[in-house]
């Protein structure tokens, strides 16, 4: 059984890392990062079956892609805390000569990153390609891809959504971070997503709902999604989260989608997040 206390401990530190990364360079995307913290911690510390050393081709491993690359702070923190690269490297986020680009990139060889993302809508297609590659290799592992809810307004997502069931790509698990917010405001005001469950079902996907802040639910739903392999259909998990989760003034608003807190608000945020593993 996973030790949820331990995951909670890690998550608190990850949230501090997120705030400290964006605050240090007065830029970056804290809102979605905070909202996906439990998900990333659960994935990297419990769920993903990964090799000890990062290898680009991910043969024999579960492979994770981040399509909404702007929530890089949470990914970088979790990768570093998991040991992919030194934790102190978080200090270079968005600075010149860093491997930790504003949006994830492969060019400088940051372990854990397999494709650049940031220009939205591309990750689901890339994940399908990886899933097909695994199928050709008789590799039993899964491919996971996280997308933003605003991101699925991109047309390419629906091209990919049509492709995967047609080609019976059932080793693929898509997760949508459904916090209801995007940079200009709530989804429903900017561009309504409508009945997401019905849309994905109509495209031929298994659809699951998940509470992105509840570890037990995350384990259960990811496990269910894995069980769907062999069914000839991909699975999408609609993950409810609260944007800005864990920092009172950031919760549930789009205001902190892509904005760093000032010094005072940084202090206020950090006072709400226990330093559990030591700041970098």
């Amino acid at each position, binding site marked *: 059984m996973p030790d949820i206390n331990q995951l909670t401990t890690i998550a608190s530190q990850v949230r501090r890392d997120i705030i400290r990364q964006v605050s240090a360079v007065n830029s970056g995307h804290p809102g979605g990062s905070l909202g996906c913290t439990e998900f990333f911690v659960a994935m990297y510390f419990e769920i993903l079956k990964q090799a000890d050393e990062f290898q*680009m081709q991910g*043969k024999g491993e579960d492979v994770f892609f981040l399509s909404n690359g702007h929530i890089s702070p949470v990914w970088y923190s979790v990768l570093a805390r998991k040991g992919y690269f030194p934790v102190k490297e978080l200090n270079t986020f968005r600075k010149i000569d860093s491997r930790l680009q504003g949006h994830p990139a492969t060019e400088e060889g940051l372990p854990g990153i397999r494709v650049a993302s940031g220009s939205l809508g*591309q990750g*689901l*297609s890339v*994940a399908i390609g990886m899933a097909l590659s695994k199928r050709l290799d008789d590799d039993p592992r899964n491919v996971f891809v996280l997308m933003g809810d605003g991101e699925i307004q991109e*047309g390419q997502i629906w091209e990919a959504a049509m*492709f995967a069931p047609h080609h019976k790509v059932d080793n693929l698990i898509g997760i949508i971070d459904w916090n209801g917010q995007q940079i200009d405001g709530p989804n429903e005001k900017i561009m309504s997503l409508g009945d997401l469950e019905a849309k994905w079902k109509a495209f031929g996907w298994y659809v699951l709902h998940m509470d992105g802040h509840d570890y037990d639910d995350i384990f259960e739903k990811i496990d269910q999604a894995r069980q769907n392999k062999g069914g000839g259909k991909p699975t999408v998990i609609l993950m409810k989260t609260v944007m800005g989760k864990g920092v009172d003034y950031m919760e549930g608003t789009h205001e902190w989608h892509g904005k760093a807190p000032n010094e005072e608000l940084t202090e206020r945020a950090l006072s709400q997040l226990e330093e559990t593993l030591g700041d970098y």
Partner: protein
Amino acid sequence: MSKWHIDITGEKKATRDGFGAGLHEIGHQNDNVVALCADLSGSLKMNKFIEDFPNRFFQCGVAEANMMGIAAGLATGGKIPYTGTFANFSTGRVYDQIRQSIAYSEKTVKICASHAGLTLGEDGATHQILEDMGMMRMLPNMTVINPCDYNQTKLATIAIAQHEGPVYLRFGRPGWPVFIPESQKLEIGKALTIRDGDDVSLFATGHMVWQSVQAAQELEKEGIDVEIINIHTIKPLDEEAILASVEKTGCAVTAEEHQLNGGLGDAIAHVLVEKRPTPMEFVAVNDHFGESGKPLDLLEKYGLGVKHVVDAIKKAVQRRT
């Protein structure tokens, strides 16, 4: 000894058929080669590959952006994906997908683009892309190849499998004279001398190599000795071969089925301006869209006829000091 290094067979075959044959052959040689298509597998001549390797072919439907992303994912997993669609849909339509998921991410994806340029013919300007090489050569990490006949396209299709990193391979629709010897080796980034000559360096790519051959034949009669260098690889450019030829001839002409802006002429002008300023003339489409018509008529109308190459050569020779 002949100045010519070609073997004019009198036969016409489309460069896209060369692609189809090359893909089939490399499919047999390399298990990692996979192919994708966006509802144009017939036009791209991918049928034999599909027949022999149904599990390694992925039909994407009319969804090119998704196809490029899937190719990036397949490459990440260690495969060597060849995407096939028209040049227009292989570049402009999917520029950002190529830029982020393939070029910036350094994925070994082979973007194979047919029906490039005016010689696509009757479909008209919506499909006749003349900006594709410019777009592709601007991308860091991208290799750009525009072979000139069936044999060279086949050779290039096979050669790019061994090349680490993304490649844009551009070819066309019409039947076109076959003149590159089957035994000719193709080295990516290494120019090929088609004819030795002393009076002018004619740098040509794609279908315009054949136009250049005809122009040089005509000028032989007038005593103008044209050196034809086939630049099949637009990027990386074989600067050494370009400079060596110009050193000998003192003037240059470029010929391409592409916009003047951003194409082969621009690339060579850059090299010459920097390293050896040289009188230079350009045969290319001058800031126009094309239109419906027969391939050769269109080449004539838009300044890519044999006579345009002849005129450009005469001008360049005249300007030589």
